[in-house]
């Protein structure tokens, strides 16, 4: 059994990062489910991360209080941002959300009193795996319940065709505002959890790489079902580790190729409810 415990020791942090990335992926799935491509999750994660770490490190707030506070911070940030962003059309919104990430980084660098500035902040509390798993399960439960609620159906309608949705009495902007609020909450929570896994955060922590990781995770996993975000995050985090073990010399190229092949073969992602339905219908 020694090899099992060694294997576990070697890859437990990969599992931890997969779960943290799952929060980011769920956060961007929340808005993508209403037809919005947004990278703003990174900014919500920064809001949750820095606030959460300040609470933990400076004010000695217990974890159970710091986590909801971080989620709330992400939520407030997302609602504020969405008031501006929802006035934009889809493509412009995607572009604007990238600009938001760049602005966030500069603001983080230039407000050392709040964020530690360029020196970063040490995080005194580690996030144990069971806590990550528990929170992820809880969040997944919420997404599951939402998917079959009135909101979930409305979101689906807004994504498929906003014009039809409004004629059915659904206000697309209001649904998208709720989506942003959910995205912000989950993103803020993910932000503080990332901080607790890294145990040190700096302006580099919440930057472009997370944005592309999470979008790639959602689409890879399948952007038509909440479980896709979780599966995608797991695969996208584990893939580099696998490639490093298999082909260390060309691991980044191999990563890219794997991603390319998966997307070309399964353009709707690994988890695809439509394919399930088709299979059921065929029976």
């Amino acid at each position, binding site marked *: 059994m020694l090899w099992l415990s060694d294997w576990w020791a070697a890859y437990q942090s990969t599992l931890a990062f997969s779960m943290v990335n799952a929060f980011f992926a769920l956060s961007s799935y929340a808005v993508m489910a209403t037809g919005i491509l947004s990278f703003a999750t990174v900014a919500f994660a920064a809001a949750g991360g820095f606030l959460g770490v300040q609470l933990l490190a400076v004010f000695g707030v217990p974890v159970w209080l710091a986590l909801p506070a971080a989620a709330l911070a992400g939520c407030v940030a997302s609602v504020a941002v969405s008031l501006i962003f929802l*006035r934009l059309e889809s493509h412009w919104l995607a572009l604007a959300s990238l600009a938001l990430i760049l602005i966030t980084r500069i603001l983080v660098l230039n407000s050392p009193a709040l964020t530690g500035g360029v020196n970063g902040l040490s995080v005194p509390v580690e996030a144990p795996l069971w806590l990550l798993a528990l929170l992820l399960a809880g969040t997944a439960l919420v997404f599951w319940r939402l998917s079959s609620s009135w909101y979930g159906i409305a979101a689906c309608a807004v994504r498929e065709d906003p014009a039809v949705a409004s004629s059915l009495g659904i206000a697309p902007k209001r649904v998208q505002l709720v989506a942003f609020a959910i995205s912000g909450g989950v993103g803020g929570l993910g932000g503080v959890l990332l901080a607790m896994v890294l145990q040190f955060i700096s302006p580099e922590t919440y930057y472009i790489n997370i944005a592309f990781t999470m979008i790639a995770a959602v689409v890879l996993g399948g952007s038509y079902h909440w479980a896709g975000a979780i599966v995608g995050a797991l695969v996208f985090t584990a893939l580099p580790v696998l490639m490093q073990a298999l082909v260390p010399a060309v691991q*980044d190229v191999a990563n890219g190729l794997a991603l390319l092949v998966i997307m070309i073969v399964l353009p709707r992602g690994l988890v695809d409810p439509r394919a399930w339905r088709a299979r059921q219908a065929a029976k």
Partner: protein
Amino acid sequence: MQLLLEQVVNGCAIGSLYGLFAIGFGLVFATLGILNAAHGTYASFAAIAGYYAATSAGLPFIASTSVGVAAGAALAVMVDQVAFQPLRHRKAGMIGALITSIAFWMILDRLAGLATGEQSLSFPAGTYPGGTWMVGSLPLPQMQVVAIVSLIVVAAGVHWLIAHSRLGAAMRAVGWNEAAAQIAGVNPRLVILATAALAGATSALAGVLAGISTNNVSASLGEGMLLKGFAAVVVGGYEDVRGAAIAGLGLGIAEVLSAQYISTSMRDAITYALLLGFLVLRPRGLFGRVSFVRA
């Protein structure tokens, strides 16, 4: 006053590179509907190809630049055919192509690192016009003039091509509705190839010129251009190359002047905040029209 003038010239020169890059980036976005994360690597590879053409083959400036531009165009066509073509028939939409472009970004970024031996290279003196003209007391580096002239020529040329040529009409038709264009007798495959090549070539030119004037031929070149070119497309709008060109210039000038007169450490925050503010006031860019909803 002298300083202001010098900085405006500097801003125009940087802005010209942003604008050039943005024209290519915007073309892909408008005609092919793809948010292409790999676009920056075209600029990197063009600069690398131009560098080796200038150093190993000893080609003069115009020739080495042409090699870079051709390399960028070829790369753009290759990426389009491998990463985007298979998705076109499967209706994977903008997001599927975004992911395959991220995949290519990862691959090409790594290959660019290998091609430069992980170093940041620079074009040796003498392989490009490196002198400085003096207009009165105003220094005017030749490369800055080359950048600004390139932007004007390319923007005017591409604008004419799109607005007045048959190819341009076909490109607009494909951008609006591929199926309808096909019914009207346009061969979309050919138009897509032409668009990809043109977009690659334009951004490649930006890459070569930036590689020369900033002494930085490396994988990181394209990433910087990508973010700024992106911003220029946001402000300028992707439906009109004049918008991207003017926005690129404006972005360069705003960046330089906010560093000079407000704060160097807040420079990027100021430029991007201006950009967001602009978006809210004019959500469809400089030359944007009222939209028609596409299902």
